[in-house]
């Protein structure tokens, strides 16, 4: 009986827990509430994915008002997989967060931090689960507001500027999105995604809908940091508190990529948007520029967190490249990369969190001799770095393999070249860190060995381990990704 209510509980539990944290006002209690809730959410997400896998799409009308009159949750393989990604990262971050947050945020503000964290989680889940374009906007607002706030909590003063910049860009993105939604509503009279998909083809030739599509693309492009709309991302990721960077880098942009896919393939699924104009070509070129350009910039960074942030922009390039191919293989590559990048980048940023916890800085020159001083953390960084490069047996290899395969199917040789070049550049920027950490002697007077606490190392190694586990045995994630890609191409049901 209660299983039928899982779709609502997936989001509502986290929503309800946020005010509870506000009332509790104790850091540890708030942490405990948040941890329990994220773990329950993970269990719910897994069970939803299992149910979708066996029985197909789950529909859940809010308040029992059938769509399109009411708001309906519509869960298929694609968003069930997204829910698992978000809750999985959320649950792994929680144990890590306790020590890390205590070190980076003043004690009297920690309970509010967890309140924000839960709201952010609920917002991202709400975006992923909903079948209604306006409802998506509402939850986009919740998740964006809470992420601006969380970013601004970084210890560095520049975190405030970074958050403000993200706020301006993010608000423009959300406004563009809602303008697009408003125009679609004007021409169709509905906000439900499935309903839009059936009505849109009839009015697709109108200029209003064309403009709507443009606004939706730019709006979501800002949110997912598509090159050249990525300017907010490096500073936001660099100056945010470690736990926030891990969570946002692994989930925030991924959910935006998901929303992008949803709008293009489901809402505009009946309209052949990709055949008209040069949309795929434009996306592919932007993606390639992001992959190569951002990787080159990453090489020159002296702040390792910022280096990883630029690498994230390059990785988003891979995802957009997969979308731009408009084939099942390409899209499956993107979807599997959503998961793969989430775990490996989450792991790498956790390593940064551990270093920040012990050393107090992630500037490259502070890394000297770190291979000896923090062996467990640095080993995890190297392992995660392999995955970022795409060494076989890692998840990075799996995603790149399928993206290359999709590019070959299309005969896009330049795209294949871009993937290879970008991987080579990744070798360089990871190597720079490894060189400093392992081949330079530790500065004199530094402590021999001092590792981050286990509560931080275990989550770190869970993510790094997962990026090998799913790299060696990728059948499960790939099956899901391919079924998801086929659903997106299937007729709108």
């Amino acid at each position, binding site marked *: 009986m209660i299983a039928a209510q899982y779709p609502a509980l997936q989001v509502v539990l986290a*929503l309800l827990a946020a005010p509870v944290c506000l009332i509790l006002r104790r850091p540890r209690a708030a942490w405990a509430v948040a941890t329990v809730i994220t773990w329950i959410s993970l269990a719910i997400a897994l069970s939803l994915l299992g149910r979708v896998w066996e029985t197909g799409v789950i529909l859940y009308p809010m308040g029992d008002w059938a769509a399109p009159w009411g708001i309906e949750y519509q869960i298929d393989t694609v968003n069930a997989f997204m829910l698992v990604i978000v809750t999985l990262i959320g649950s792994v971050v929680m144990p890590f967060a306790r020590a890390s947050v205590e070190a980076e945020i003043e004690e009297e503000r920690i309970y509010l931090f967890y309140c924000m964290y839960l709201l952010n989680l609920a917002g991202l889940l709400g975006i992923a689960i909903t079948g209604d374009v306006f409802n998506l906007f509402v939850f986009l607002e919740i998740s964006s507001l809470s992420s601006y706030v969380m970013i601004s*909590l970084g210890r560095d003063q520049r975190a405030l500027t970074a958050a403000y910049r993200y706020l301006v860009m993010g608000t423009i993105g959300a406004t563009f999105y809602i303008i697009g939604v408003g125009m679609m509503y*004007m021409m169709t009279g509905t906000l439900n995604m499935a309903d839009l998909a059936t009505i849109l083809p009839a009015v697709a030739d109108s*200029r209003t809908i064309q403009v709507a599509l443009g606004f939706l693309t730019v709006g979501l492009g800002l949110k997912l940091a598509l090159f050249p709309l990525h300017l907010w991302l490096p500073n936001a990721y660099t100056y945010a508190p470690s736990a926030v960077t891990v969570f946002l880098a692994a989930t925030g942009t991924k959910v935006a990529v998901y929303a992008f896919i949803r709008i293009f393939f489901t809402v505009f699924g009946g309209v052949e948007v990709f055949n008209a104009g040069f949309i795929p070509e434009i996306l592919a070129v932007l993606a390639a520029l992001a992959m190569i350009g951002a990787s080159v910039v990453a090489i020159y960074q002296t702040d390792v967190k910022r280096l990883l942030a630029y690498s994230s922009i390059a990785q988003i390039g891979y995802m957009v490249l997969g979308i731009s191919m408009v084939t099942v293989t390409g899209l499956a590559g993107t979807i599997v990369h959503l998961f793969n990048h989430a775990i490996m980048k989450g792991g790498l940023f956790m390593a940064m969190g551990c270093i920040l916890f012990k050393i107090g800085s992630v500037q490259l020159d502070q890394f000297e001799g770190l291979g000896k001083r923090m062996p467990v953390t640095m080993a995890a960084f190297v392992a995660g770095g392999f995955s970022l490069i795409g060494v076989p047996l890692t998840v990075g290899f799996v995603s790149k393999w399928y993206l290359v395969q999709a590019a070959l199917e299309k005969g896009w040789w330049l795209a294949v070249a871009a993937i290879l070049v970008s991987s080579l550049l990744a070798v360089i920027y990871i190597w720079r860190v490894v060189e400093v950490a392992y081949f330079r002697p530790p500065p004199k007077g530094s402590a021999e060995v001092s590792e981050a606490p286990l509560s931080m190392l275990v989550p770190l190694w869970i993510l790094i381990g997962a990026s090998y586990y799913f790299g060696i045995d990728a059948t499960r994630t790939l099956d899901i990704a391919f079924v998801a890609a086929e659903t997106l191409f299937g007729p709108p049901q």
Partner: protein
Amino acid sequence: MVFMAATSFAVARLRNLFGVVMLTGIFSLMSAVLYVVLDAVDVAFTEAAVGAGIATVLMLGTLALTTSEERVSEAGKPVWALALVVATGLVLIYGTFDMPPFGDPYAPIHHHVAPRYLEKSGQEIGLPNVVTSVLASYRGYDTLGEVFVIFTAACGVLLIIGRPKRGRRRTLRMKVGEMRHGMRQNVILRVVSKLLIPFILVFALYVQWHGDFGPGGGFQAGIIFASGFILYALIFDVDTSRMVVPSGVTRLVLALGVMLYTGVGVAGLLRGGNFLNYSVLAEEQTAGQHLGILLIEFGVGLTVAAAMITIFYTFARQEH
């Protein structure tokens, strides 16, 4: 509309931020009028109270903390930004060419979901105000989300500027303190506001409980209530008003409001319906809907009022 355009142009040109804040207040009032013309009375209500009232107060508070003169940046004229804005505007205008004409009865929005709201909401929900039915029940989940947006904003303000006090703002605080003092001695302001505040609060309650029959509801009521309260704090003293409602209480109410809303949703779930199904709350469908809407609107009102007061307190504490 012409006035609005002229105002926004003036806002962009003006360097004195105090004037800018006043003009944005005027802009909000005019857009409220525009909403009334467009028959969106509920939106007009909110716009007038938030845009013209509370937002202005908060912006003035910010000015008191920072400075009221804009620094002219040295970096050349932002030609690219202007070009981008103009291009976006042109694209928007291009998009309007194929829009159905204003007030067209054959426009798609009047023929897809709207007819059911208009024809059946009487039977299904039993409220004369269709807007309330749509907001609170058919699309109640969106409204829940919006209340959480406000909740997030209030918590965010608490988290960012609710920091422990710092010394360097003392001079500014004194300046604001003098201003406050001046206001308290102003007899006209004191008497008029004392006369008005009870009515404002009662009106807020009316809007709250009457939202199902006329325009209004929790959002508007919460804001009107909060603005009455903030008026008091402005004229008399923030500390005095804090004695009436301590900030711990507003924080609690802030949380309780959203929890009440969500709780009603969960109650529907426990009684065998889906989340936010109010029909199962009572024997009869319409009675259940009525009860559910009344409760959630109360939750909205609580959170909105508490959020506004919390934000105001947090700003004011910076000054004091």
